[in-house]
Each structure stands twice: as C-alpha cells, then as structure tokens.
C-alpha cells in the first residue's frame, strides 16, 4: 500500500511557486506517495509571526497540525522549508506541556501532536530513496552539471529539523546524482540568500544571492537546484536585478529539485511548468545534449 501523507502546500505553493507545488504533486503521484491536502489549512505564520509572539506563531501551525490529525495519514509533509520550520518548531515546542496548554487555549481545542512532520525532500530521500528513483529514470540528466542549494533553514537548527547534515547536507545531491546529473561541489549549500529582505533591504539580497550565483558559476554549474520557494525566487526572479547591482552577467537557471526529478521520470510540461522559470533553462538543456552527444 502506498504511504499517505497530509500535504501542506503553503501560501507560496499556490502563488509564487506554483511550479514547485505542481511538480511536487506530480512526482509524489508517480512515485506512489499519496498526498491529501490538509482541509481548511491556514497560513503557517511565515516569517513575521514568530518575531512577535511564540505562542501565537505556534498556534497558527498547531491549527494545521490539528487539522491533519483528523485525517488517516502517516505524517505531515510540506515542500516549503519555511512552513516546515514553523510546523516542526510548533510540534517541538508543544512537547512542553505548559506551552502546549497555552497553544490549545488559543485554539480552543486540543492538539494531539502525534504526527511526524517532514519535508517532501526528506520523504523522497528516506522513504523512496535515490536507488528506487534511479530505477524509474527514463530521461537521464547526464551532462547537466548542477549546484545543489538547500538554503539556510532546511536543516537548521539541527535539533529541531533533525534531517541530514546541517553544514553539508547531501539529500538533494544524492537524488540529483540518481537522475544522472553531474553534481558540482557547491560550497555555499546552506548559505542565506537574503530571504525576505528582498522587500525591506533589497541590497542585502543583491549581495548574498549574488554571492551564491558567483559561487555556482565558480564550480562551473549549468544550473542551480533548490528546495525553497523564497531562495528560488531571489535567485531566479531577481537574477536580472542582481546582475545589474553587481555588474554581473549571470544566466543561471534555478530549478526546483522536483521539476528535475519530474523531467527525468518523463513527466510532461504541464506538471513541471518549466515555462514558469524566469531564467530560461533552454541553454542548460542544450548544453546537456551537446555534452552527451560528444561523449557518445
């Protein structure tokens, strides 16, 4: 029987990162992971809530946890690292009975807090595994050199996130390698992209994300691959701004890892939405074909 998870798409999944959401659902379906959307889910609190009030912030996520508990599922999964952080932090903090009581008072109902919370990446890496994904590959990505970029919160803080290595994570590297891609030793895997400062202090994002693009170019990557909607947006949507600010000429496609898995598994454009990427990946794919042709 295929495992069933309560799926939390997050706000960005329905908006700015629709292609992440769409490809995640398609990949999970193909690999036999059943997703049930959490009924009537609400915002996780995102960045602002926990800077104001910990109990309130946790209550927002706890409500979603509570909603998921009403389903017959093995756990809660989400593609977005920020949603993941909020869900996991809420779950972690509620192990303290006193804190749990405060949250429950805000929600007017009890939360069992029994379901494990994981990222889609963790489920794909640990439950399905690179080997089984490699078996399903129909269109190998060999010839495509990727810089895997995890972002700063997928694995941090380690005592709460409890997945992979917080300094040198390898889950995405291994999954991409299973698709046949060439993995560049990307040194800034867990660096900050500037996150939501893109709005408040754009210069910060220009500097930090610019550094990431420089580093990816340094290791001769054809493209970056991410697991975070915000990172993807800063690197992809703002790449032109970054180029202008730093006097650079990057033309670096920034994929979601689920898009590349989907491509290697032979899924169609309507589930991958590669067209939604701002920096067109055509060049990277063309180079991939050339490398392959010259190798054969």
């Amino acid at each position: 029987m295929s495992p069933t998870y309560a799926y939390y798409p997050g706000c960005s999944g329905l908006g700015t990162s629709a292609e992440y959401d769409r490809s995640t659902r398609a990949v999970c379906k193909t690999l036999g992971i059943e997703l049930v959307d959490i009924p009537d889910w609400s915002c996780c609190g995102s960045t602002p809530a926990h800077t104001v009030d910990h109990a309130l912030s946790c209550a927002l996520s706890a409500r979603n946890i509570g909603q998921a508990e009403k389903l017959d599922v093995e756990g809660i999964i989400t593609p977005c690292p920020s949603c993941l952080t909020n869900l996991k932090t809420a779950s972690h903090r509620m192990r303290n009975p006193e804190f749990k009581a405060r949250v429950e008072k805000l929600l007017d109902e009890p939360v069992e807090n029994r379901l494990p919370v994981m990222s889609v990446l963790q489920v794909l890496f640990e439950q399905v595994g690179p080997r089984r994904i490699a078996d399903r590959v129909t269109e190998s990505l060999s010839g495509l050199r990727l810089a895997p970029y995890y972002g700063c919160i997928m694995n941090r803080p380690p005592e709460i996130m409890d997945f992979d290595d917080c300094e040198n994570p390898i889950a995405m590297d291994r999954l991409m390698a299973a698709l046949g891609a060439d993995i560049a030793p990307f040194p800034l895997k867990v660096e900050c992209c500037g996150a939501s400062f893109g709005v408040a202090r754009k210069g910060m994002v220009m500097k930090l994300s610019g550094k990431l693009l420089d580093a990816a170019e340094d290791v001769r990557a054809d493209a970056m691959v991410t697991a975070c909607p915000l990172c993807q947006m800063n690197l992809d949507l703002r790449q032109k701004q970054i180029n202008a600010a730093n006097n650079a000429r990057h033309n670096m496609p920034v994929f979601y890892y689920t898009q590349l898995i989907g491509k290697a598994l032979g899924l169609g454009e309507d589930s991958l939405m590669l067209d939604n990427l701002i920096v067109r990946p055509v060049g990277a794919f063309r180079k991939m074909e050339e490398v392959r042709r010259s190798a054969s």
Partner: protein
Amino acid sequence: MKIGVFVCHCGSNIAGTVDVARVAEEARKLPDVAFASDTMYACSEPGQEGIIEAIREHNLDGVVVASCTPRMHEPTFRRTVERAGLNRYMFEMANIREHVSWIGKDIEANTGKAIDLVAMAVAKLTHDKRLTAKKFSINKRVMVIGGGVAGIQAALDCADGGLEVVLVEKTPSIGGKMSKLDKTFPTIDCSSCILGPKMVDVAQHPNITLYANAEVAGVQGYVGNFEVSVNRKATYVDWEACTGCGQCMEKCPSKKSRDVFNEDIGTTTAINIPFPQAIPKKASINPEFCMKLTKGKCGVCEKICPTKAIRFDQTDAEAVENVGAIVVATGFDLFDHTRYGEYGGGRYTDVITSIQYERLLSASGPTGGHIKRPSDGKEPENVVFIQCVGSRDKSIGRPYCSGFCCMYTAKQAILTKDHLPESQSYVFYMDIRAPGKLYDEFTRRAMEEYGARYIRGRVSMIYPKGDRYVVRGADTLMGAAVEVEADLVVLAVGAESAKGAPQLAEKLRISYDTYGFYMESHPKLRPVETNTAGVYLAGACQGPKDIPSSVGQGSAAAAKVLALFSKDQLESDPQISEVDIKRCVGCGKCIETCPFTAIELTEFRGQPKAKVIETVCQGCGNCTTTCPQGAIQLQHFTDNQILAEVNVLCQQTLPNYG
C-alpha cells in the same frame, strides 16, 4: 572499652554549619565514651598532641575523630594514635565535612546528622580489633607505558637512579608527539635536536629494555609485584637482525602506504622506518599495503635485505614482565577536525591540522621544510590559523581548554614568516592563554615583530572560492563580520584523551574522567599518583600538557618510583578478607566474584575451602556479600561492625532532620 571522641571545627569548614560543641556533648553521653571534646584543627600539631594527651590521661582504648574525609587524614590520625601506643586500627573517622557541613546549610539538621555519624563510628569502634600489617618484598623494576617525552624522561630518570626499566611504546618508534614537531615554543629550538639525544640515551642505556610496537595486554598483581603481559605486534622484520640501513625502503614498490608519522601528508613505502631519527631504527612492514602480504606477490625487500631480516610469517608475540611499579605516560590524541562541517569536515585539501602543518615546516617532513599547499604544491601567501578547534566548545563535547594551542599557533605564525617572508598570517582566536614562563612575551612577539594579524572571534565558515578559501568569521573587538581569503588554513586542533585510554585504565585499575583523561590521586597534593598504589602518571594522559610540564611530571613520577623502591619491604594493608575455615563450605562463589583473583580453592582435611591470597586482596568486600555462609569476612569491616553501625543509627531518638 574506653573511647575518646574528637570533633574538629576545620576552621569554619565544619563549625560554620555544624554545632560542633553539641556534637561533642552528645558523644559524651554515648556508652563506652570516656572522653569527648571539640578542637579547632584536629590534624594540626597541637590537635594531634591533644589526642595523644587524652589517650594517655584517660587510658583510652580507641579514638574517633569527626572531621574531613578519611582519604585526606585517616593515615595522619592512625599515626597519631600509634604514637600514643594504640593499635592504628583502633581508630575510626566520621566524615562530617564532605558528608555534612559542605552539603547543607541547616545547622540543626547538620548537627543531628553529625551526631548520628559519630554514634555510628563509636559503635563500630567497640567491635574493632587490633590488626597488624604483614611485610612483603618488592621487585625493584619499573615499567613505563608510553614513549613520548614524558615517558622518556621518567624512564631515563628511573634508569639513572639505578632501576631496571621496561619501556613499552605502541608505535614503531619512541618520541611521541614531540618528535613530530618542528620547533618548540617559546625558545624556537629544534624539537628533534633536543629530543633526539634523549631518545638515543634510551636506546643506549644499559638499564632500559625497550619494547616498541607493543601494547600492554594485561596487568596482574599489586604494588611491588605487578605482572604485566605485553603484546609485541608483528613487524614482519627480525629487529635483532635489522640494521636500519633503509635499502628495503628504497626498493619497496608499494609506495602508497599511509604515512602515519607525517600525519598522512603524503605517503610512504609499505616497509619503512618511520623517520630518520627513529629509535629503535628498525624497519617494519604495514601489512595493509605490503603486496607480498596482501597478494602474495613481490618480496623485493626480502631479496635485497643484506642481513636477511625480513620475516613475512612473523606473528604477534607475548612478553611477560614482572615489575614493582608502573608509570603511565600514554599521552593524548588530537581532536578530529572532520567533526566541524562548517570548516569543510575534512573535505578541503588545503584546510589542514596544526600537526600536519608541523610536518610541512619540518626539515625531515615530506616537503623538506618548504611550506607548500597540499593541493597544488604552491607556496601560500595568506595563511589563516583558527584556534580552539575542538577546545572550549561545548557543542562538540570539548568544553575544556587544551592549553597549548595558543602557543603553538603563535609559534607557527612566527615560523611561517621565517619560511615565507612575503606571507601574511591571520590568527582567529577567542582569548590568548599564555601563562607559562616567557609565554605571553612570545605571543606578543608573533603579533608585534612578525606581524601576525590577530582577530578575536570564532570562524563561522570556510568555503572554497577558485583555488583559494574564504574564511568568514567575526571580529568581536571591532563588532563586525570579517572575511579573509586564504591560500592555506591551519586548524589549531585541541587535545583529547588517547584512543583506548579507558581500556588501559581498566587494565591498570585506575580512574579516568568524563573525557578519558586519567585521574590523579589529588589534583593539588598528589598530582602524579593514582588511587592504585604503585601506578603513577606522567604527561598528557592526565590532561593536556605542554613539553615543560610533561617533562616535569615525568621526573616527578620517577622520583615517586625511586622513593617507593628506597624501601626493601612494603607493608600490606591488613584490611583484607579472611576465611572462617569452620564455616566455609567450599562453594567457590567468592572466587567467581573476586575482581582481583585474590581467592583460591585449597583443601583442608579433605574438604574444599576458600583461601585469600593476602597480598592480592584489595579489600573491596565483594566476596563477603556473596558468601552464603557468612564465612568470609573483611577485616575492619566485618558484619558485626557494620551491623553495630546500623543498630545505633536505628536506635537514635533525635529529631527527624529530613
């Protein structure tokens, strides 16, 4: 029986939270107590004289002193009562300091507990018997475990004092960590030039037997008469025949063997002499890389060896040594920096450890003393040193300061400028800890004369950028984030206990701390003794130490051994088990539980009976609790004595003090 009780104030240590006068007053009411008083310092000269006077005046049969721990002063007071003509075992101690005054502030409760403890000691004393120590002769040979600088010093001092010394070293050569260093702080003298002669002295000293490439497998016996079995690991070379000519090294085709001595900077041949000054200067084969031993082909060394010393069929051998004392000098290991993911976790070729850097600096190292980056052999321009890697970091379980890293980093920064005048060194540090003689001046010199740039703050991350590295950290004095581009990064790794240290401690029956460092008997007053008589400590096996401290402690341990051996006979402790032969049914349960194999089975009128080997028994009491007949009793802690204590405690009618 007439008993005297002396309640010590210990200054304010006890009197501050215990009503000592009342304890003495209550003691006076106890049966058999003929005299009781409180005294300011029972252990002082007037205090002891007071005890002697009271014994004589009141014709006492036994004495109870209520004061500190028996570990501290039981021998002192035993000598006191002996001087007054009593048997030294007619003395009991009640610990009202560590067990009472230091752990609670409630005077009422403390006083009640102190009264109870005194009453118990008095009750036990009424059942005490006069015991006499037996004498036994000692074997005046000493074993030193570990051939680093501390072990070498201890061995030489003992040997010069006329003792026969057995030195056991795990690796194929003595010299330890010091032999891998290029120069030493704060004098910048050449490490191997000052250590080399001492190593040669070890080899040439008629009183020293050296077992290199050997490990202690087991220890039996007791102070004065240890029996140590030593596992001499196979080297596949007959060391009697080997002359150390080195021809085998030149011809060995397997050149990818791990170079342990050079800290894996570069490789070596499968048969090798670890370094030019090695003692003993003998070749040994690394079986993992020898083609003859792994694949059955080759054997070049065997063909060319002029003295026919190669023995591919050699196996480990056991040697048994009888010694009277053991000096443990097993040293330390360096922290494994691959645990720091943010520093690359061992993935970056040009992020190396401080000891690897020493090998690069050393003229006998793999680069002949030229500083070259391991990745491309280029001379580095910017060298970044990061201190406290594996020191003072709770998150990786190393909260302690390793002590010598500040100094060796300053030394390496100075040497870097010496070797490469165009280079620039940066040192990220947390605090500079340089308390030794001429140490602070030395670190100042690194900064002021050699221009090393010291930045106070931890490094958060190292990442490669092109063929250089970006070292990102904080400058906490400036309050800003800093990034330094480095060609070479040297991690000042801290010290941790040697691998296998706890296992060796079990064999030697000595204690070790949470981190695996061996515990001294008293941190201030007995720094080289252990709690096992006849076993002494020297060097960094006890905690991180620099060369001067290690050498000092090596000499101190040797002095202790010489003092021990200045007597021809030692007194055995009479507080050991004794078998009541009439009660013993010869079931042998005590033999099974004895951790020291101090009990054997004998025959008495055709019946099997247990017998205690007096010199081996350590008086732990395991056998007495095991014996179903109650036939085996620990002298001075017999069932009757312990029951007397329990009885009096149960009969106390004092208020409940929780």
